[in-house]
């Protein structure tokens, strides 16, 4: 049976792995139990800075520490990272300080907490900031590997993780195959390419299975890095498949779909169908119910794939 895990657990594990580096520090805003930085706090309280419920302060404390030679990992819910957006913009991104911000509980998949907690715009807003790398991994293994890689970079980042469990796709993977800025082809096909991130990667694999039954062979890409986008891989998919679908638990405006569309219009072109939250706020519901309410689940991805093919 497939192992199920939440990406936020991969983040928590990565922080522990990184603890050997004495420059790594963890910043919290009263959600360590939820983002999973609590494991680091337990093991290394002296290198964990509690900022209380104060996201704006947390981001700039991180900036000051980064400017003093430390490698800060700050986390809260994805939605509350947005509370500190301008701090991230002017205090972190502008001076290019390597503060690593993690937003957990991203997307409508977050579930019954409802619309106030379901961030559907985080990827979009952080993507607009120069210098900021934007990641949204799909399982705990890749989250752990990518988080570790962030510690070696010299620029800030935003990573979205998810609250709820999804199938683990990278057990036994060679860690070298998971690199920032490089999409991963999980299934190859030549009729249509489904480019997905986060919780919709496993949904896209399911969609690809459904499509096989209809004689359609889809390629599935885990585009865990939204910025910088792996344009070379998108070009390859355009050439090989000639039709694309993007899939994300995020507003259709500004996220992965937009990133791919921005790339397409300036390069080799192919029809693109975007699966994403249809520019509306969420509501309370179970994680799987939300994927259906928002028309994000496998069957909608498969439908979008057929539509993209019909537009070839």
């Amino acid at each position: 049976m497939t192992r199920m895990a939440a990406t936020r657990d991969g983040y928590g594990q990565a922080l522990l792995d990184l603890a050997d580096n004495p420059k790594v520090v963890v910043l919290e805003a009263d959600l360590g139990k939820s983002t999973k930085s609590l494991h680091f706090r337990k093991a290394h309280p002296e290198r964990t800075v509690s900022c209380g419920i104060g996201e704006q302060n947390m981001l700039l404390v991180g900036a000051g520490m980064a400017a003093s030679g430390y490698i800060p990992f700050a986390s809260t819910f994805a939605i509350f990272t947005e509370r500190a957006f301008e701090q991230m913009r002017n205090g972190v991104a502008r001076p290019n300080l390597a503060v690593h911000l993690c937003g957990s509980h991203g997307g409508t998949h977050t579930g019954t907490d409802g619309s106030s907690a379901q961030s559907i715009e985080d990827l979009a807003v952080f993507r607009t900031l120069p210098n900021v790398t934007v990641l949204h991994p799909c399982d705990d293994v890749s989250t752990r590997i990518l988080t570790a890689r962030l510690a070696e970079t010299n620029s800030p980042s935003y990573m979205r993780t998810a609250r709820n469990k999804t199938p683990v796709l990278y057990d036994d993977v060679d860690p070298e195959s998971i690199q920032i800025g490089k999409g991963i082809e999980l299934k190859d096909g030549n009729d249509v390419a489904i480019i997905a991130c986060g919780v919709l990667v496993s949904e896209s694999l399911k969609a690809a299975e459904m499509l096989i039954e209809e004689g359609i062979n889809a390629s599935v890409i885990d585009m865990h890095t939204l910025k910088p986008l792996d344009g070379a891989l998108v070009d390859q998919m355009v050439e090989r498949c000639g039709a694309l679908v993007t899939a994300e638990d995020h507003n259709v405006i500004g996220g992965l779909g937009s990133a791919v569309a921005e790339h397409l219009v300036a390069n080799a072109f192919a029809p693109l169908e975007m699966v994403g939250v249809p520019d509306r706020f969420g509501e309370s519901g179970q994680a799987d119910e939300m994927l259906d309410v928002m028309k994000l689940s496998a069957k909608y991805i498969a439908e979008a794939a057929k539509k993209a093919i019909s537009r070839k």
Partner: protein
Amino acid sequence: MSKSISELEEIARKCRVEIVKMVHRAQAGHPGGSLSEIDLISALYATRMRVRPDQPDWEDRDRFILSKGHASPGMYAILAEMGFISHEDLKSYRVLGGVCQGHVDMKWCPGVDFSAGSLGMGLSFGMGCATAARLDASERRAFVMIGDGEMQEGSVWEAAMAAAHHELGNLKVILDRNRIQNDDFCEEQMRMFDIPAKWKAFGWNVKEIDGHDMTQVMEGLDFLEAPENCNGPSILIAHTIKGAGISYMENNPSFHGAAPNDEQFHQAMVELGEVEA
């Protein structure tokens, strides 16, 4: 609007039962802060709020802003008790399409005046309501319930300073001082030192009470309404117990955002006098 202390205690007890039922049914939600606030909210709604349950959008109603919007079961319970929503509606807590969304939401639930969920926003919103009431020359007031962890948000203090500057005597805050936030005790996460002194220094009228002693709660509400305290904004600092009324939840940070299991649910119903042991 007049109720005896024992009548108020009984309203609060019934609300406690509903709170525990809601989070148990949903197997999610925030019992701790709902149980700490409920004596205060019960007394406020049952004896002070000028509202019309059959006309929830009545223009001149008092506003109640649950800024700590995760403690929504407490608010839903009193809204049902007052008749804004039905007891059947309470079953929709955290259910797809339900009026009782995870966090109180003015777009979803009659009687809710603020879409909450992000801490540190309600006081500013309340200031807006109070300012509008003043411009309208209306008698209506804005009551805002905030949490102690929530008080760590900088925006709370922006609003506190502004409300005093504008001498908003129709803005009244109740602080649920239950000493616990999400991860832990406030003392561990972020010490807040002398809370009454902070508010006084910001220019507010301040009174401290035991938020579970109904007599003191009524005195506290008298204080908020007293004409001599309507020269500027006032705050009632209510010392409470997170999880109050359910022994295993009391002072227990793990029941900030966790539901009781079946056995714990049964025990809660026994402790609240709903069923025999």
